[in-house]
């Protein structure tokens, strides 16, 4: 829904554009209802993947209880690339919701935050943000977002029961990982060593994206050099991610139905021990909590092993955040800022802990609950040891749109790792050019 001012503006525009096209007026007239007497009404746009809508509703309700003169309406948008376009379109037409939930890192940078968002760096909660998080919601001119949800790690989610039964230990190197896979394949009685779910193509990228911390361990300059077009995936160490995926695929370690299985299928398989390893984001626990909660305590996490044990690090994704668009003004702006602050208040944290199920450390004021899933301890161990690095999307704006298709091809044996890496290097060129980066 739009605010009355927005509605008036858009109606006027429609009249100007198409005086003859009477039906348009009817369309514009349908789009809003006026705020009722005195109360400030703000809108909160979140994405449709569970449990985001539930969390948004709970936050809105709790916020209204504390602020009786403000009403918060929750709006739902699609996720993924479709959601990106919706957010960009609404921002560029000045019709964005008063508060919206969106990715941090390079996707945020693509929104032109300096001109399209409200700088929140004067807010009290900014002081509590972790130093890893601040840069991913900031530009040189301001800080724009408050975290909603915890950080999560990308690596291998594994089933502890399977490990215990077969007497396996957490691998430190890639060779140890493959040895574990072989043992599972021969002695596991039908347990798939590695789960892949290409029915949802984004899940195929973890061998590459989750390996990034290992790339940085070998070459700390890699991200900046990549942005400057001085590094590529076709060369080691980044090529290893593709090669590892190919190696596992060629060994036949995937679950039989990998071409059509979906992400929820994969979540169920790892939780119930039908598979031993699922290269995935640790946030998969949220899906497991919802569908097969009994399996959560069986899950563990380890970083995708590098060739050498000393290079094995966990790749960390910083949490998404809530932002306020520049089009929000006056009383709505004040209410929107209060709502953003509320998200990281004690009451807001309780809701996050209950509904968003943390899959890694928090980036703001919130504390993990006592009954957090054991997989979090594994991730925390990497953090405490200092063996983590942010994922590439937080360090470089260069990401090609087709990585998930390329990795599906590697996993399905359509394309070799070397070809795929070279293909992907070419794919990112359109992104780099779109951003007008130097050196491309």
């Amino acid at each position: 829904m739009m605010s009355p001012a927005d509605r008036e503006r858009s109606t006027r525009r429609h009249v100007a554009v198409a005086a003859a096209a009477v039906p348009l007026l009817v369309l514009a007239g349908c789009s809003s209802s006026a705020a009722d007497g005195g109360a400030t009404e703000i809108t909160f746009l979140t994405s449709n993947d569970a449990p985001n809508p539930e969390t948004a509703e709970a936050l809105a309700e709790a916020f209204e209880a504390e602020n009786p003169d403000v009403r918060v309406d929750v709006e739902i948008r699609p996720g993924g690339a479709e959601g990106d376009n919706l957010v960009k379109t609404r921002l560029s037409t000045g019709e964005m919701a008063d508060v919206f939930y969106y990715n941090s890192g390079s996707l945020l940078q693509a929104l032109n935050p300096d001109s399209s968002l409200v700088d929140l760096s004067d807010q009290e909660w900014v002081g509590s943000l972790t130093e890893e998080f601040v840069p991913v919601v900031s530009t040189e001119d301001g800080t724009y977002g408050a975290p909603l949800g915890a950080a999560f790690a990308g690596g291998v989610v594994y089933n502890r029961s399977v490990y215990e039964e077969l007497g396996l230990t957490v691998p430190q190197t890639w060779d140890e990982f493959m040895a574990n896979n072989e043992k599972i394949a021969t002695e596991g009685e039908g347990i798939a060593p590695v789960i892949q779910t290409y029915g949802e193509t984004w899940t195929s990228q973890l061998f590459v994206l989750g390996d990034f911390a290992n790339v940085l361990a070998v070459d700390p300059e890699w991200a900046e050099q990549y942005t400057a077009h001085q590094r590529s995936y076709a060369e080691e160490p980044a090529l290893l991610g593709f090669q590892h995926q190919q190696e596992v695929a060629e060994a036949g370690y995937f679950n039989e139905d990998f071409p059509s299985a979906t992400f929820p299928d994969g979540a169920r398989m790892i939780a119930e021990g039908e598979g031993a390893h699922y290269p995935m984001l640790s946030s998969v626990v949220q899906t497991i909590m919802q569908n097969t909660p009994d399996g959560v305590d069986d899950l563990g996490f380890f970083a995708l092993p590098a060739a050498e044990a000393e290079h094995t690090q966990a790749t960390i994704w910083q949490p998404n955040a809530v932002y306020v668009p520049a089009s929000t003004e006056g009383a709505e702006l004040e209410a929107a800022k209060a709502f953003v602050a509320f998200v990281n208040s004690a009451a807001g944290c309780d809701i996050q802990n209950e509904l968003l199920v943390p899959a890694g450390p928090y980036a703001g004021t919130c504390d993990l609950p006592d009954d957090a899933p054991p997989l979090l301890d594994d991730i925390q161990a990497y953090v405490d040891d200092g063996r983590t690095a942010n994922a590439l999307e937080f360090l470089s704006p260069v990401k090609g749109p087709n990585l998930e298709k390329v990795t599906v091809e590697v996993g399905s044996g359509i394309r070799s790792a070397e070809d795929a890496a070279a293909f992907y290097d070419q794919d990112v060129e359109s992104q780099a050019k779109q951003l007008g980066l130097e050196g491309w």
Partner: protein
Amino acid sequence: MLAPVTTEVRPGRRRRTAGSTSATQRSIYPSWFYLPAAALYLVFFAVPTFASFYFSLTRWTLFDTEFIGLENYVQFFSEPQLLQGFVNTLVYGFVTSGAKVVLGLALAVLLTSQLVGRGYLRSVVFFPVLVSTIGVGITFKALLDPFDGVVNTMLAAFGIDGPGWFTDPDQALLTIAAVDVWKGLGIATLIYIAGIVAIPQEYYEAARVDGASRWQQFRSITLPLVQPATATVIILSLIGGLRSFDLIWATTGGGPGFTSDVIGSVIYKQYQAGFYGLSTAGNVILFLVVTAVMVPISILLNRKEVDR
């Protein structure tokens, strides 16, 4: 037979007369009657079309635009998946169009013969046309799931190992083409039924008197006289096939990998990724490709019609 035997007017001749009268007659409506339609056309078609030519020459982030000349076109042609997309588009267009011509004609011949429940069967053939393409795509994706889809489960009951319809890289595009044919066959059949029904019965009677077999009647009377219907079916289905996108997106999303990508899905993915100028350039190119394929075919088909 359904066709009235008394008909004297051949379709070709009638169309020519109709054309010449309307050209000489003044319109009975005042010209301002056209204004609403013209305004809508201008706002929703003409302006966006010309705007898209401009935006295809810019780097466009929705927040601002930067004029970059033909760089988008250069970039579009250097996209690594483009070649496969082109090949797939042509394969898809010609396979679906060819299958619709052959099967549509066969079904039309069947459905214009004396047949029990003919009206019902005609409706059944046409029903898929009425269903939403996305709905069809999602339904077939479920039916043809390689592991727990109905089709492969049934094949397994007969001891046949069903293929990975949408997941086997060699098979995906052809499976989508088959679904497209299933969905679009109704239109082709309908056009052919109209064409066959318009053929005067005297020709068949004369041929039977001369002792022509059923095959000879089909070969020498039906086939040449439904030529205008064939031209329509080819043109409509080829344009549809070359522009196809929705069914492919709903079933495989161009996958696995890029194996069932067509130009339409390549462009859509660029748009999704936020390369608005680049994907607009792609659409301009698609427009040119479809035109380049269709104009010669259309001229060829129409010339044949006149020769007859």
